């Protein structure tokens, strides 16, 4: 028997774990390409231009795949947690709108222009265009990370009792205030740094595998430098994020650190107890980071395909564990109610109302309100088995297509 909350969490986490490494690569490549081209201009070495082109070709394939899985996440959210997605859409609509304007309306046509103007425009203009694309693409995580920060700590939200509301209250968000969320900046910065570091790891991997091309040495060198510079920056900002989580988001902190945060009133332990103890997750990420560091240092001196594979697998595992852990640590909540809000609601409206609000924000409530899919899945387990088999099959196919794309481009 699979509960709707488990089904929702598992499906969303799966799609997220495929989506995140892909979009990290896109963001990282978009920021890296203009600087590689700039280096080519300064050094007069045309290999840098070839490298930029090969990075671009790879980026296009990954962008398409990443976009598809982004769509899948949205469909899962809408299908499995419709009320949550509905309220998030209506309260934070300027955030979604800005993300889509930047991500689709501006970035995609400009990527087409960037491709068409390779070696047609002057390098200076082409580099400027590349930087504009990188900035516009960065608006996507800048907006989506606000939603993530919001679900961990709904800053700027007011809860107003409303007897006519079926859930007993109304929610209102001041979007401008929401940007002052203390979790937002470290989360956003760690995302940008992680994406560039991860891209470095993938470049090191890719250009070690295709070591026969003339620019692969440059690709490996730039990849290792990116990973070595931006990896530590990611570590610092991720630690900053975890510190803010510890202060403001009791359930996530409890899940990730294995015990309730010291500032959490023991009276509220029952309210904030997480579903999963993920205290092993940060350690696993740290161990993988150490392995990654050793592997990168080795690969800066040697070309070894087997070690490059270890680097790629460790990199993907690190990203997925960090992001997946952050996501699952929310449970049982979709939106973790802040302790200050809980105390305020208890004082103003009584404990029953505060518990009503907390229960409403749980995944199980948001997933079961209308979730016919999980009922069908429970009645027809074959549908679930078929779905899991298909998702696994497509995971393999996605990797296969990316591999073919790499092979295709490197032999062209």
């Amino acid at each position, binding site marked *: 028997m699979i509960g709707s909350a488990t089904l929702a969490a598992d499906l969303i986490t799966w799609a997220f774990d495929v989506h995140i490494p892909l979009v990290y690569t896109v963001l990282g490549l978009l920021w890296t390409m203009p600087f590689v081209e700039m280096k080519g201009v300064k050094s007069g070495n045309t290999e840098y231009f070839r490298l930029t082109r090969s990075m671009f070709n790879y980026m296009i394939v990954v962008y398409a*795949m990443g976009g598809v899985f982004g769509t899948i996440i949205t469909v899962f959210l809408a*299908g499995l947690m419709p009320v949550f997605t509905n309220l998030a859409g209506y309260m934070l609509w300027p955030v979604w709108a800005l993300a889509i304007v930047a991500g689709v309306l501006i970035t995609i046509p400009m990527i087409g222009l960037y491709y068409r103007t390779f070696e047609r425009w002057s390098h200076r203009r082409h580099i400027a265009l590349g930087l504009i694309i990188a900035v516009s693409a960065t608006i996507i995580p800048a907006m989506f990370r606000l939603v993530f920060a919001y679900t961990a700590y709904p800053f700027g939200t007011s809860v107003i009792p409303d007897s006519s509301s079926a859930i007993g209250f109304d929610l209102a968000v001041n979007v401008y205030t929401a940007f002052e969320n203390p979790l937002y900046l470290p989360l956003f910065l760690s995302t940008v740094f992680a994406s560039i570091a991860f891209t470095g790891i993938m470049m090191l991997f890719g250009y070690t595998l295709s070591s026969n091309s003339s620019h692969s040495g440059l690709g490996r060198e730039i990849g290792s430098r990116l990973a070595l510079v931006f990896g530590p920056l990611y570590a610092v900002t991720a630690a900053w994020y975890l510190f803010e989580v510890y202060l403001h988001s009791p359930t996530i902190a409890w899940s990730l650190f294995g015990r309730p945060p010291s500032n959490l009133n023991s009276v509220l332990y029952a309210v904030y107890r997480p579903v999963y103890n993920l205290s092993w997750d940060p350690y696993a990420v740290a161990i993988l980071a150490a392995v990654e560091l050793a592997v990168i240092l080795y690969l800066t001196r040697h070309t070894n395909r087997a070690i490059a594979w270890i680097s790629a697998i460790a990199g993907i595992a690190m990203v997925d564990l960090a992001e997946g852990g952050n996501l699952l640590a929310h449970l049982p909540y979709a939106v973790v109610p802040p302790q200050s809000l809980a105390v305020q609601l208890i004082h103003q409206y009584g404990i029953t109302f505060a518990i009503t609000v907390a229960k409403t924000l749980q995944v199980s409530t948001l997933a079961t309100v209308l979730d016919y899919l999980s009922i069908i899945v429970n009645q027809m387990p074959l549908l679930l088995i078929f779905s899991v088999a298909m998702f696994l099959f497509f995971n393999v196919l996605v990797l296969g297509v990316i591999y073919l794309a790499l092979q295709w481009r490197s032999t062209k």
Partner: protein
Amino acid sequence: MVTPTILLLSRVVSAVGILVHISLASSFLGTIALALLFEFRYLRGGDVDYMKLSRKFAVISTIIFGVGAAYGTLVEFGLVTVWSNFIALIGALALPFFLELFAFLFEVVVLPLYLYTWNKVKNGWVHFGIGLAAGFGGFWSAYNILAVMASLSMLPPGLEIVSLASVKSSIGGAITYLLEWQKPSDLFNMYWWGANVFIFHGIFAAVILSWSIVAGVYIRRYLRENDQMHLKFLKNTSLTIAFLTLIEGLVIGHYQGELVIQFDPLKLAALEGFFWSGLKVDPLISFVATGTFNHPFWGLFSWPSALRPPFYVTYAYIVMMVGFGIVLGILTAGIGIYLLFGGRLASFKLGWLNALGPYLLKVGQYLIPVSAAIASIGGALSAESGRFPLIFVSSVPNSAGPPTVTGIPVSAILNIDLSMPYWLAALLLIVELSIPFVAIYGIYLYSRRSGGDAQ
């Protein structure tokens, strides 16, 4: 606060966006079908021209898919931000969306494989099989999305509307309507008979539209270059378009009409232009619908004005969809017969068609794509504006007057916090209309690079 202006601007912006997305999706369905058709003919007969055509349409379908998928994300986020209170209803419609994901995965993963494996798989039929899987993804995707769209026009059996608004309640001050199935297994009623009629109507329209546009381009090139490849394309597609149009109009259209009579008599009155109040006999419609000449229909003015669809749907249905659909059918049938049987027409006493053929080609190069586009837009307007101001429409008999038409008001699913100034609506419209040119430009670049033929 939802004002009539915000509602109108949101509708216009969304309608244009959805129409453009549908055009791109239709073009993908049509072009991948062409790629498969010509690859099949190549594998059967070994004619290299068919291989070139197949490869060309495989590339074009991939370009269109790429732009269409990006556009789909735009439409999806438009739904979340503009029509956010529709999302709460999606919980009840989760099955088609869930199954559509597999279709989407098929498309996005298998389509590049189809392109990549050209000339790399020794057995051509294996490559054709990969193409079939990619095509299946596209059509399965359309099948599921059209099932959802069908439910907006006709409430599926077992699905019930829960009106929180009627008891002055809401969820979080925003959500005022929910959907509920009588029992979970009713979820499969998303694919009931009525939905399938709607779905196949849409899929046929997609193929007719996209093939007609390509046929227009190919007639033009055939007239200029007079070459075999363009002629082969036209011989394969012209009569097929005419046949599909015939099925669409006379068979599927007939069933669609019966469903409209049953589920939404108000929409029927608006589409057919029953501009009267109370019951009145319309002999022609009566004959088409029931086989008799004396069946009475409720006139449009029998319902309160707030419930009536906009008047332009009559024009969209009769002139745009039916009228231009007939023009399209006649033109493609004439051209198809002329190209396929030109030399033998005289023996069937159809020699006059030989004289008419060149003229049909000259006119057809413009009129075929234009007629198909107008008919498609007319069909979309009839189906979607014809049910306005409601979604999830159903009707129940009323002994005291016309059937009671019920549903969820479109205004109830709009984001109540949305602001949509004129400048923003104008900007969105410009962007929505300009994105398809990315696809057109991509196809132009590909055609120019390959010299018109896939190499």
